[in-house]
């Protein structure tokens, strides 16, 4: 049985109209639209909440993943002590993991002579919104500006879009609207790497005759004025090459170095980078087994 009244329909019509109006305002207005101001305000207001929730959840999920002891209510002295020791061990494990992330980030920063602002990912975009974005806990107060490159110890994460006083939004390199200029390591072949969401990044090489093989490594080419991307950041490895005879460009699928579902510590690179590090930041390539070649 459907219940519907005139009033309900009027309200529905008004709300849908308002949504369309907002969409139009947002798309037309660009950086200075009132919608953009509202977004900045929402970022400023909500980021402390996100930070708090994230600080609470992070250790808990860490504990769940490493296996919480099941029988805590059987309170023999030994079991309690055992659980105590395990928890301590896990804490150390957690800290070791963070230290590893920091080490990797430091390595890249040192090799590339990058100046970076450290930050922590505090919220992830909604996959149902078909956008791949995260919030970090550093903002304008820390010197972050729109269109800065965001990296972690493994490579490129994305670029900064909206900035609030104490938080910023990062568009991930796997977002379908994200395009990164990429260069094949060891050669001067250039291409454009476009995100495809949860699927591998797509690379379109400008040279249709480019010699590209699975396993080839990619770094960012660097944008004009180093915004939004600084040069030399590791991007990923070629997973497969599409053979389309007659096409003007050659396309390939890229496995990114960064695990985009497990982002934690990141660094925001402050341009300018004095010297293009070329291929220095790439991880050592695994030697190709002879049987794979044949």
């Amino acid at each position, binding site marked *: *049985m459907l219940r519907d009244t005139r009033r309900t329909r009027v309200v529905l019509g008004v709300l849908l109209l308002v*949504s369309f109006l907002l*969409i139009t305002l947002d798309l037309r207005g660009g950086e200075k639209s009132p919608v953009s101001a509202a977004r900045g305000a929402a970022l400023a207001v909500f980021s402390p909440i996100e930070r708090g929730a*994230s600080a609470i959840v992070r250790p808990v*999920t860490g504990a769940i993943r490493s296996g919480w002891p099941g029988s805590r209510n059987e309170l023999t002295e030994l079991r309690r002590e055992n659980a105590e020791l395990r928890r301590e061990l896990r804490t150390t494990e957690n800290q070791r993991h963070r230290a590893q992330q920091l080490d990797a980030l430091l390595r890249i920063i040192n090799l590339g002579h990058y100046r970076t602002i450290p930050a922590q990912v505090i919220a992830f975009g*909604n996959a*149902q919104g078909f956008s791949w*974005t995260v919030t970090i806990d550093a903002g304008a107060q820390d010197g972050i500006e729109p269109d800065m490159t965001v990296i972690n110890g493994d490579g490129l994460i994305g670029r900064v879009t909206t900035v609030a006083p104490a938080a910023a939004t990062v568009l991930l390199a796997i977002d379908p609207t994200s395009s990164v200029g990429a260069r094949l390591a060891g050669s001067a072949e250039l291409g454009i790497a476009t995100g*495809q969401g949860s699927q591998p990044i797509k690379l379109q090489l400008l040279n249709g005759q480019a010699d590209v093989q699975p396993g080839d490594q990619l770094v960012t080419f660097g944008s004009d004025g180093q915004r939004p991307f600084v040069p030399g950041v590791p991007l990923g490895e070629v997973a497969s090459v599409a053979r389309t005879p007659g096409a003007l460009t050659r396309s390939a699928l890229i496995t990114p170095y960064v695990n985009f*579902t497990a982002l934690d510590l990141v660094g925001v690179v402050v341009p300018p980078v004095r010297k293009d590090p070329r291929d220095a930041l790439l991880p050592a390539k695994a030697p190709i087994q002879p049987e794979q070649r044949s």
Partner: protein
Amino acid sequence: MPARKIAVCASLITAALIAQLTVLPRLRLPGSTPDVILLVVMGLAVAYGSTTGMVAGFSAGLATDLLPPADHAVGRLAFVLCVVGYLTGLLRDELRKSAPVSMGIVVGMTVVGMLLSAGLGALLGDLTLSLTALTRLILVAVCYQVLLSPFFIPAVLKLVQLTEPRDLLSEVAR
């Protein structure tokens, strides 16, 4: 709308937003993250009817559009969730009848919601996702929604019932 109703809706939506943006992604569930916001909007629409359902959907959607780290055109999810709230409110009596029918409605709403969102995104040039990726996302979302809705929607109803027992009884009797 009575103040109590607004308070219930607002607090439920806020809780869902926090869970959606900070708690659920950290669990690293396979495929995607379940859409708790959609479930809360559906629950509110079942509890209060289509008018409240669509207002709640609009507000929840607008909040998701504006809150970090959202980056798509503001108003897209507001539109989508408003429609979902309205339709769920219309079908509220069916949703309470039997489990298979309500499952069907949940699946339908999830698919309608995601297709609307994808369609709007494509129309606005916001979204350039391939069809296979889209289908996969929708399938994963449907699975999560089917798994969660039998617990979630009754939980929202129960909460609403706790806050205003008399109003709801009179509504059911009507």
